[in-house]
């Protein structure tokens, strides 16, 4: 795939690098890269891939741009708010580099469409904000033989790794299963330093360019961690697991599958979300069952009158005894575990479910300042 005179000028700083040169730039032009998630990680990676001249960039994202995204998602501007991300991204990228092809996949990545989408690309970058999509992406890459550059962030911390088929371990070799307790909140709940995904997304783009051009050493079998507060990087080596469920000797996963997303929108859409004041107003009603899903030591330090303690990890086995006529209100310290509890209850068919938004911290702040909220 040869370069035009305009492209030779545009990529002159790449061409000046002996490690890339014309041959490397032509590889970039011929490459087809898919980015899953046009969020904090996807924004810088997509921008740099487009600027670098990756010939075809696919973007999977079914979300719309929200004003709260702009603090870190530098692919979008204020005028993009409410627009579908995949479409807004496509427009921005073509303005940056009209020589490339940008394909917007404005759909939710699921087991049913992952093969069809991934098969159109040479390489996948994972920038999703959901564990279910993260594991689906890894499994599909292993099953389809596609390289994967994965990254994730939380508050001030990030991590990245690269999977190349037959050359090293996959994401599941490092973390075989996602957390089941739902105790790892997403960016919306936990907050995130805006510039953090800029660092990790740029590392993903760097790995992608190295993979395509065949230069340098990749993050194969190496987990790179970054702590923005300490301003340090660490590297941890890990190996392929013989018992890996997808790339091991006897894999149990032979087809991409949708992992249950406990806190998915579908699971939670019928749940009543109560503020601390609303809960206070409802407490005297006889048809309310108040369930505190914190650990016993937290419960003992201070609890709401009439509440019973069922730690979230033990909730599933206790649901059989729940009344069908009462509203079950789940509470925890900050609202993360109780949301998981709501999802577990909803999946099990509990009819009427309510959630204390902001947890007992909100209760202490808005209703009863003498209430003691223990640390988890």
């Amino acid at each position, binding site marked *: 795939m040869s370069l035009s005179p305009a492209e030779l000028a545009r990529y002159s700083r790449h061409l000046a690098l002996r490690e890339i040169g014309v041959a490397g730039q032509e590889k970039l032009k011929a490459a087809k890269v898919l980015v899953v998630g046009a969020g904090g990680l996807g924004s810088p990676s997509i921008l740099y891939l487009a600027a670098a001249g990756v010939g075809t960039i696919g973007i999977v994202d079914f979300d719309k741009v929200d004003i709260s995204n702009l603090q870190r998602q530098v692919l979008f501007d204020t005028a993009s708010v409410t627009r579908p991300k995949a479409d807004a991204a496509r427009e921005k990228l073509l303005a940056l580099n009209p020589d490339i092809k940008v394909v917007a996949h404005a759909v939710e990545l699921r087991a049913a469409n992952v093969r069809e989408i991934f098969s159109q690309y040479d390489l996948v970058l994972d920038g999703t904000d959901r564990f279910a999509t993260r594991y689906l992406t890894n499994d599909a890459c292993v099953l389809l033989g596609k390289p994967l550059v994965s990254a994730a962030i939380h508050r001030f911390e990030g991590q990245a790794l690269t999977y190349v088929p037959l050359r090293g371990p996959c994401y599941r070799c490092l973390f075989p299963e996602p957390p089941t307790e739902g105790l790892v909140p997403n*960016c919306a709940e936990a907050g995130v330093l805006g510039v953090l995904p800029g660092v990790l997304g740029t590392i993903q783009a760097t790995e992608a360019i190295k993979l395509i051009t065949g230069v340098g050493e990749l993050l194969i079998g190496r987990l790179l961690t970054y702590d923005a507060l300490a301003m340090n990087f660490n590297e941890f080596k890990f190996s392929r697991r013989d018992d890996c469920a997808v790339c091991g000797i006897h894999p149990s996963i032979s087809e991409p599958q949708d992992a249950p997303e406990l806190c998915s929108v579908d699971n939670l859409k019928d749940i009543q979300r109560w503020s601390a004041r609303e809960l206070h107003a409802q407490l005297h009603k006889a048809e309310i069952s108040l369930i505190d899903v914190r650990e016993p030591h937290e419960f003992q330090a201070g609890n709401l009158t009439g509440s019973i303690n069922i730690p979230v990890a033990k909730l599933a086995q206790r649901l059989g005894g729940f009344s069908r006529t009462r509203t079950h209100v789940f509470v925890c310290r900050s609202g993360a575990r109780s949301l998981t509890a709501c999802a577990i209850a909803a999946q099990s068919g509990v009819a009427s479910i309510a959630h204390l938004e902001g947890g007992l911290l909100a209760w202490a702040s808005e209703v009863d300042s003498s209430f003691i909220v223990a640390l988890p």
Partner: protein
Amino acid sequence: MSCIVRIPSPLRSYTNGAASVAAEGATVNGVLENLEQRYAGVRFRMLDEQDRIRQHIRLFVNSRAVVDLNEPVRSGDTVHLICALSGG
């Protein structure tokens, strides 16, 4: 034996926000027990009811991956607690 334990971001609510804490223990298990004494509940976030390392957690002593909780920890070592992150 005194070592440094690096706390992953999702577990820093247990350590009052501290990114690293000093801990005592001759083995990885001993270090986790010591942490639990001071930060109640943190051990259960890393180990399940059967005392197995949770599937979304990895432990390293310096750069060595921990397979067995009885692995030794020496004075001056750094124990890294690594947690799968989901944010994007």
